[in-house]
C-alpha cells in the first residue's frame, strides 16, 4: 500500500472516535438548542423554534441570570485566590525557595482527588452535627460552633470556593514552580547585585519573566472554573436555594431533571461564547512565537 494512503488509514480510527464522541454530540446539541426539545414529549426534538430558547433564557428566566452571576463571581474568586496562593507557594517551593523536597510530593495529594470526592468530603466536614469543622470551631472559636455553613447562602458559596481553591492549588503550584525554574537564575542575581530589594526583584525581573506561564495558568483555571459542576453537585447541589447554582448545574437541572433538553442545549451553547474567547487566548499564549 502506498504511504500516502496508509497514513490516512492509520489515523482514521482516532478520527472516527473523535467524530462520534465529540463532534457529533456537539452538532446534535446545537441542533437541539433550536428545538422545543422536551424529553417527555415525543416529536418535540424535531420541533424547531428558532432562537426562542435563547430569548427565553435572556428575557424570562431570573434563574438563568442568577447562575450567570454565581458562575462569574465563583470564577473570579477561585481564579484569583488559587493563582495568588499557588504563586506564593511556588515561590517558597521553587529551586532556591525556602521549602522543598518532601513538601512538593505532599502537595500533589489534593489534586489527586476527584472533584466529586472533594465535594463529598467537604460536605461531611461542614456537617453541623458531626463535621470536622463543626467540632473544630466548637473548641477553637465557640461563637462559630453552631453555624450551619451549608445552609447559609453566603457561607455555602464561600465553602464551595474554598473547596475548589484547596483542590486546585497543588496543580497550579507545580506549573508555576516549573515556570519559576525556567527563569535564568543569573537575571535574578544580576538584579540583586544591581541594587534591587527582594520585592523589586520579584516585581521587575521574576514576574515579567513568569508572565507567559502565569497567563496560561489564569486562562486554564478560568476555563475549569467556568465549567465547574461535579464538586458543586456533590457539595451543595446548587443550594441553599440557588445560591451556589453555577451555569453547568443550571444546565444539568433543566436538561436532566426537568427534561427540557432543547432549552438546556441553548444555555450550554451560550456558555460556549466565553469559552471560545478563553480558548483563543490560551492558544495565543501557548503557541505564540518567542
Amino acid at each position, binding site marked *: 500500500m502506498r504511504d500516502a494512503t496508509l497514513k490516512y488509514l492509520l489515523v482514521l480510527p482516532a478520527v472516527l472516535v473523535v467524530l462520534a464522541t465529540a463532534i457529533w454530540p456537539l452538532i446534535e446539541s446545537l441542533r437541539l438548542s433550536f428545538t422545543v426539545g422536551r424529553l417527555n414529549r415525543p416529536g418535540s426534538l424535531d420541533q424547531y423554534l428558532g432562537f426562542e430558547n435563547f430569548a427565553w433564557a435572556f428575557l424570562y428566566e431570573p434563574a438563568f441570570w442568577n447562575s450567570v452571576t454565581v458562575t462569574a463571581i465563583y470564577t473570579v474568586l477561585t481564579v484569583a485566590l488559587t493563582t495568588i496562593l499557588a504563586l506564593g507557594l511556588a515561590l517558597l517551593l521553587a529551586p532556591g525557595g525556602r521549602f522543598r523536597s518532601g513538601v512538593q510530593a505532599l502537595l500533589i495529594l489534593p489534586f489527586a482527588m476527584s472533584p466529586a470526592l472533594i465535594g463529598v468530603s467537604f460536605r461531611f466536614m461542614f456537617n453541623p452535627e458531626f463535621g470536622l469543622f463543626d467540632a473544630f470551631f466548637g473548641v477553637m472559636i465557640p461563637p462559630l460552633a453552631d453555624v450551619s455553613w451549608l445552609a447559609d447562602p453566603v457561607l455555602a458559596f464561600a465553602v464551595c470556593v474554598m473547596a475548589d481553591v484547596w483542590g486546585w492549588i497543588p496543580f497550579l503550584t507545580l506549573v508555576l514552580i516549573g515556570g519559576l525554574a525556567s527563569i*535564568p537564575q*543569573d*537575571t535574578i*542575581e*544580576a*538584579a*540583586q*547585585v*544591581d*541594587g*534591587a*530589594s527582594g520585592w*523589586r526583584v520579584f516585581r*521587575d*525581573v521574576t514576574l*515579567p*519573566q513568569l*508572565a507567559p506561564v502565569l497567563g496560561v495558568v489564569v486562562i486554564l483555571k478560568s476555563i475549569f472554573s467556568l465549567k465547574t459542576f461535579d464538586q458543586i453537585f456533590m457539595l451543595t447541589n446548587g443550594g441553599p436555594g440557588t445560591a451556589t447554582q453555577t451555569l453547568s448545574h443550571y444546565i444539568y437541572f433543566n436538561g436532566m431533571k426537568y427534561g427540557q433538553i432543547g432549552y438546556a442545549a441553548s444555555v450550554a451553547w451560550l456558555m460556549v461564547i466565553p469559552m471560545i474567547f478563553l480558548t483563543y487566548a490560551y492558544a495565543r499564549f501557548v503557541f505564540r512565537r*518567542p
Partner: protein
Amino acid sequence: MAEVVLRNLTKRWGDFVGVDNQSLEIRDREFLVLLGPSGCGKTTTMRMIAGLEEPTGGEIWIGDRQVNDDLPKDRDVAMVFQNYGLYPHMTVYDNIAYPLKVRGTPRSEIRHRVEAAATKVELAQFLDRKPRALSGGQRQRVALARAIVRTPKVFLMDEPLSNLDAKLRVTMRAELKHLSRELMITTIYVTHDQIEAMTLADRVAVMKSGIIQQLGTPDEIYNNPANLFVAGFIGSPPMNLITGSIRDGMFVTSGGIRLVPVDSADRQEVVLGVRPDDVRVSEEGQGDIDVRIYAFENTGEATLLTVQWGHQRVIARGDRHLRKDQDDCVSISLMADHLHLFDPQSGVRIAS
C-alpha cells in the same frame, strides 16, 4: 573606590570544600584576576564577595566595612555574569538603566548616564532593542554598560568573555583592558583562560582546590611559578617538566642523560621545568643533546617541535621559518638561566 579584603574565607557544602580558609587583599583600583581550572573555587570566591553565596566562615571587607551580613544590593558592587544576566523583557536602555532606577536616580540623570555608558561600549544605536535581537558580543557590551553606568566600589566579572567566539574574545579583551584603565575601579575578574589573566591583570591569584596557589603579577607567575601546578597551568604550550636528579651541579634525567648545569645543591629527586620558548633548537650535533622529532607542528606564527628521547618528550618552540619533518634529528639545548626546579613530592619550587 575601595580595597577588598578577604580574611580566612571558607565555603563548604557538607563535606565538599569550595574555598578553603583563604585570605587575600585586593588593593584599591587594582585589577585582580582569579585564575584556575573549573571547580577551583574562583567563582565561589567572587560570588561570596557579591553576596550571592554565604561564606561558611571568614570575613569579607569592602573598603572599611565588613559586608558579610549585607545583602548584595547594599554592597555597592557591580557584576558582569558569564551568561550576561540581561533582563530579557527590557530594552537595552532599560537594562542599563536598571541599577540607577532602583536607586531612585532622577529620570534626566538616568538618561544622561545611560547614554554615556552606552557610548563608551559602542551601543548607542541599539538602545531600543531587546537583548534577544543582539549578537553575543553586543549582549556582553550591554552587561558591561550596566556595570559601569554607576560608579560602584568594586567590579566583579565572572568569566565575561567565555561565551564569545575566539575572535570576538580577543577584541573584547582589548576593549575591557582599555575600559578598565579608563575607569580605574577595583576589579575582580574570574577566568580559566590564562591569556585573559596574563593580559588583563595587575595581579593574578592562581587557585586550585579552593586554595590560592600563587599570588603575583603576571610576570612573577609566568617567570617564577611557585609550584608545579602553577608551572603547568600557565603557558601554552605548557612548561616541560622533566624528572631526574642533580649530581655535581648537573641535572641528570631519570634515563641517566646529563642534560644541563643547574645552580643547586645535589638532590636525589627533582623536577626540572623549562618553557618551550627556552628550549633552543639547532641542527644535529650543535646543541646539548641530539633528539628525534616526534611531531612537527607549524602554527604560522611559530613552529612547535615535540622531541623525544627514551620516554621523555619535550616541546620546543622553533623559529617560524624552521621546516622539519617527523623522525628528523635535531639538537636541543636548554637555556640555563631560565630553568625552574621543583620538589616532586610537595611540588614546591626549589630556590636556586
